[in-house]
């Protein structure tokens, strides 16, 4: 299956770009990610727990960043073996464009599954893949932008007049 969407992120393209290349951000953004190690250059080893319809499985596999055009676009791809559940693999082609309010992040995602997940859960794969992509980019947006205003009341109280920041921005100072 294939799906495409975009997000408008209130941060400049270079900030967004830096976040994409940050392993900590990647780990936070992959839904169900239990561990991730590695580097942009060598790729990451990841353990992800997910439930697809009737099949719950631990996927171990690799996440790679490729086709990198500095500040503009890259491809995030992953492939995981889920033991008796089969396998899942997919990728997202991500492009960044500056906008008046920050950055438009566009993505085209494709996902494939095989083995038991395909055999038993095919009816829900499309919905599942869309949810995974939505979750990933929502988390990413949150990481870069910071949470919604209501949720950030506590932050504002302690940090007084400081501008709202996502945890990634705070990390950067």
């Amino acid at each position: 299956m294939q799906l495409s969407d975009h997000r408008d992120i209130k941060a400049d393209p270079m900030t967004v770009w830096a976040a994409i290349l940050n392993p900590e951000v990647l780990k936070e953004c992959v839904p169900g990610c239990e561990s991730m190690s590695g580097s942009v250059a060598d790729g990451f080893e990841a353990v992800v727990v997910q439930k697809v319809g009737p099949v719950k499985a631990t996927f171990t596999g690799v996440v790679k960043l490729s086709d990198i055009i500095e500040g503009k676009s890259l491809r995030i791809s992953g492939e995981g073996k889920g033991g008796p559940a089969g396998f899942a693999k997919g990728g997202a082609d991500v492009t960044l464009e500056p906008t008046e309010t920050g950055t438009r992040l566009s993505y085209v995602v494709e996902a494939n599954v095989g083995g038991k997940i395909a055999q038993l859960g095919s009816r829900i794969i499309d919905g599942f893949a869309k949810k995974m992509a939505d979750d990933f980019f929502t988390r990413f947006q949150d990481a870069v932008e910071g949470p919604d205003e209501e949720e950030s009341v506590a932050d504002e109280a302690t940090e007084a007049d400081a501008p709202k920041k996502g945890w990634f921005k705070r990390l950067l100072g």
Partner: protein
Amino acid sequence: MPKDTGIGASSKRREDVRFLTGKGLYTQDIALAGQTYAVMVRSNVAHGKIKSINTAKAAAMPGVLAVFTGEDFKDVGGNPAGWLINSRDGTPMREPKRPVLAHGKVRHVGDAYAAIVAETYNQAKDAAQQLADDTDIEELPAIIDMKAAVANPANRVHDEIPDNLCFDWGWIEDNRAAVDAAFKSAPHVTTLELVNNRLVPNAMEPRASIGEYNAGTGDYKLTTTSQNPHLTRLLVAAFVLGIPENKLTVVAPDVGGGFGSKIYHYGEAALVLAAAKKLGRPVRWIAERSESFLSDAHGRDHVTKIELASTKDGEILAIRTETLANVGAYLSNFSTATPTFLHGTLMAGPYKVPHVYVNVKTVFTNTAPVDAYRGAGRPEATFSIERVVDKMCRELGLDAFEVRRKNLLTPDQFPYTTPVGLVYDTGNYQATLDKAIELGDVAGFEARAAASAAKGKLRGMGLSTWIEACGIAPSHLVGVLGSRVGLFDAATVRVNATGNISVMTGAHSHGQGHETVFAQIVADKLGIDESAVDIVHGDTSKIPFGMGSYGSRSLAVCGSAMDKAVDKIIAKGKKIAAHMLEASEGDIVFEAGKFSVAGTDKAKTFGEIAFSAYVPHNYPLETLEPGLEETAFYDPANFTYPAGAYICEVEVDPETGKVDIASFTAADDFGNVMNPMIVEGQVHGGVGQGIGQALLENTVYDENGQILTASFMDYAMPRADDVPFYTVDHSCATPCTHNPLGVKGCGEAGAIGSPPAVINAVIDALHRGGHTHVTHIDMPVSPARVWAAING
């Protein structure tokens, strides 16, 4: 008057006593001392290169006794195709080796590339997962769509087969030019492209095999879910493992349905035998339901373009078809015969058609193997013909019943040689059509349609006049056509000293009711009670020989062998009686269980003769051997040709597209009927499967070759409320002219004749509802497809 015993009686199925009380003995029920468990490791990808298999971890796991990979079987034989087909240019079909376990490449999801044998099932299962985790398979692009498969020579299921074509078959090639000429000059040509949807057989009992080996004698035993244990023995022993046939016994005990899928030899059977020898312990493999979906031979899967040339008033002048037939990743045993000689030879239907030409291209894809499934080729032919005839009637504004009547062969035209190589021996197609019209109350249809309309439903009526060739098969003919086996059968009738009888038959019953019907036939001929006759089947050590049950052959071929063996018993009985009654053999008559001297009251009962044969105190020992046991082999002179007329009425809900079967009438000619109740049951089952294909069932692979319909959640089997109460008739009988019982076969009929009746009814309903733009909907006509068709 209905009979209450013997031939023609609706004797109750004696086997049901054990089936319905849990006393059946299936392969899985057999527990052996020291048994071990095999689990197959199956590919998750449709097409892949096996780069490495590391067995070390799996082999070291608790309880694991052995690990097998394709490497272990690379030097044994392949599982062969049973029928050689030549392409139009005379070249023989391409036959890739089908190994016990995949070696080098995996070619469909579910293709087994390794196996684990362990002390317990769960240990084997765990180790199988470990082995899968330790296997590196590089996924290759999958070849799924048949048109793409033949168009893209770079991507190959088998590296040595460049265009993924097994063969390009023309039937009959010499007639092609005349057929083309008939089309050129035809006043009207109707064209239809259609798909015969891929089906999973889904027998109630999944496949299973238990292997045993006796190191003391060198004897092997295979207990397995087979429709034909002798054929399995031949394939495993002579072709795959190289075991002498006399060192392998194959037993197929109670088997829970087959529908074709258990005709074939599969790698698991060879695996358990090899493993049993290696371990010196019994090895059992029982398929999970998921494995059935992945690895049983599937059915149908044709894409066909059919053209019909006719006059403006509906006289059929010529038929021409082009078909792509999917064989899947490997050639299953009958896979090359099914789309050719079981399909192309039927393409004249029950009609007088001067010109017919059939082209079939058989294509390898990265899907499970496809082979014969209830009907096997004949449902595909019937669906194509009956749909295109229906379309022609609509295009020309003609009545579907009248057009059938105009084109059907008439009783005076038999024997009739078709332009596709068959000789129909007998039939009365008008009689079954008239009977269906009467029983289906065609006259009252308009009133029922009005009643449906009042409920907001569209009612339609569909007709199918079908014929098939079964009673497989005359060996000399199939030999000429490329079969690598003979298709005769055998029976032994063993009369015991006390007069009761064991009949060993080469047929195999996996739901058909042979134990009842065959006993009726033997008892009737001998004038004894049915309960004195037992039928023994499914064991190569007990049965003289047999080619098993498929192609509606059990009664016509195996039953005829039995009939011949009983005749030999009677002939010998006459000799014994002549001696005992001090008369000449020529004066002995046998009637109603008694041997008597013609014109006298001197007689001996069958029991007395049997006793004398085993206690030969007063017996012609100088000229006659003692004992009373006879074996007969029977090879049919021709196929048999059951035929009939089916009328289906449907109600379509135009709001949702849901189709309900309102009624279904089947008027069949099966020749002489041995047990009407069992025949009726066979028709119910066959039509039920046909309705399943027409409305519900479909096998879907995605573009990567993942099977998406691999459980009963996604694969819609027909349920009780999907089928109507059937109206079934078989009174219009024209007995088969060439077998002693005059029987034709009824096992596949329902599945052959019913799908076009259903679809024709759906199209009729839509046209009556004003949706005249709908000329065809592919099966299964699900609510979504019907709704989409209605709404353009």
